[in-house]
């Protein structure tokens, strides 16, 4: 069984982002980038399934600019066998990413595609579902537990009301929740070994996918600032303020 894992390079989750003054976007120059956090869970799960002897190959793929190669390399260091980088320029919407992934799936023929449930930059939460639709495969989104059966997966999903368990026939798409597992760190020897693993580079234009955005980003603004609050000295004062000043209790 072969697992394809899609990973995205995003601004590191700890960075306090800055909006560009001209309202055209977010400052990304000289900002720390790293793998989208739930994509780390996706790689970890794929590698664990391989270690359990249930998968034979894990392929990591990223769609993005040249530098996304670092993100693929990191996935290789954690245990993926080979990498694919589909080079694109500018904003690529989830619809276009899913069309690119569809082409790669048709070529690589994986049994499963894993990815994070959402990217922490665009917060779209779309790509996995879109890919599942294009391939007419089942989808298991927001997965927090995956059990591999012979021709299917039993997946526990995080839903608003609690948890839900579904069974999806393979081939299938799984989008991973942060609760799925604890991603491992890549050891130095494995980082060195990863440098020798192959990364195939493809230009998006060669795949015949139109990546032109369908949505115009008219402007990006900072959210309204909350006005500074006060510190209270005691619980009594807090309750008095909530009762008499804020009038919320």
């Amino acid at each position, binding site marked *: 069984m072969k697992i394809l894992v899609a990973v995205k390079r995003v601004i590191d989750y700890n960075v306090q982002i800055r909006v560009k003054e001209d309202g055209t976007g977010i400052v990304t120059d000289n900002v720390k980038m790293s793998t989208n956090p739930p994509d780390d869970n996706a790689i970890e799960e794929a590698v664990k399934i391989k270690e359990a002897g249930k998968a034979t190959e894990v392929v990591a793929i990223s769609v993005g600019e040249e530098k996304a190669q670092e993100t693929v390399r990191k996935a290789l260091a954690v245990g993926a066998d080979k990498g694919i980088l589909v080079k694109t320029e500018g904003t690529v919407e989830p619809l276009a990413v899913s069309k690119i992934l569809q082409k790669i799936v048709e070529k690589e023929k994986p049994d499963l595609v894993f990815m994070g449930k959402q990217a922490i930059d665009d917060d779209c939460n*779309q790509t996995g579902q879109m890919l599942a639709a*294009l391939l007419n495969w089942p989808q298991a989104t927001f997965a927090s537990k995956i059990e591999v059966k012979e021709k299917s997966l039993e997946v526990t999903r995080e839903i608003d*009301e609690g948890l839900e368990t579904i069974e999806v026939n393979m081939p299938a798409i799984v989008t991973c929740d942060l609760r799925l597992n604890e991603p491992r760190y890549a050891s130095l020897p494995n980082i060195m070994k990863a440098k020798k693993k192959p990364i195939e580079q493809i230009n998006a234009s060669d795949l015949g996918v139109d990546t032109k955005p*369908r949505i115009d980003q008219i402007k990006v603004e900072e*959210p309204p600032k909350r006005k500074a609050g006060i*510190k209270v000295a005691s619980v009594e004062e807090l309750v008095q303020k909530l009762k008499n000043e804020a009038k*919320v209790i």
Partner: protein
Amino acid sequence: MSVLLIAEHNNKEVKPFTLNAISAAFQINEDVHVLVLGSNSDTVAKSISECSNVKKVIHINNELYENYLAENYTSAIIKLSGSYSHIICSANTFGKNLMPRIAALLDVSQVSDITKVISEDTFIRPIYAGNAFATVKSNDKIKCVTIRPTSFDPAPSSGGSAEIQNGEPGDATELSKFIKKEEIKSDRPELGTARVVVSGGRGMQSGENFKLITAVADKLNAAIGASRAAVDAGYITNDHQVGQTGKVVVPDLYIAVGISGAIQHLAGMKESKVIVAINKDGEAPIFSVADYGLEADLFDALPKFLEELNKLNTIQK
């Protein structure tokens, strides 16, 4: 052209966020049609037909829709899509799972989690964990949009008398199968719509200590929230998580106890009207968004807080 809203329900009752989505739909275009896909779901169709601002209810009643699976829902919606300019639903786990599958089949780029309607094709949505707001214009013929429910008031659930039209089910797929749902039952107000939320973080140190939160929540008729750290540590179940990857809440009062205030947590609560932080670390980022901050050990502060609340004659519920 009209707006098609996909209702979320459990075959007996309409989920409250469907009403918020009706409000957003009505702002986009006043000709709002609501699709109820369900099994033995007549009461759901009827109650939606009574919502004001709903023009028509399309009810597809079939055992195929007994349990919600995106694979089964999709084909019925695609069949109806030709008559609509917009297909929308709430941006909760229901809508997030379903809508992109519809959008891809229609070959349109989805607009996720909008907080404001500017016009029929232009919306505002938060990006980067709510640290920026993007104004976006969709150029697709059919616009697939999900609604951040807490950004829109619920539509009135009475006063309407929409026509209920029965529709044909879509194709069944054998791709996936529902097995079970472990729904967490609670008498408390629902986290997403509660007027007051009391949340605990890693500082609670154990699940047992959450009883301090529970006691305060009981007194204030509040919902209980949690940071991801508290959920991951097993102090409380996942459905309580507030934040970028959990729920977004906008209560009148949000009390954060033992929560440092990471970017990802703030994403889920910083629009709350009044924020209170109780934390022993005076440098914790949560204090930068708190209207009232109390620098104290929560194990001293919470029992005292409850004591003070008990002294009040009246508490708004």
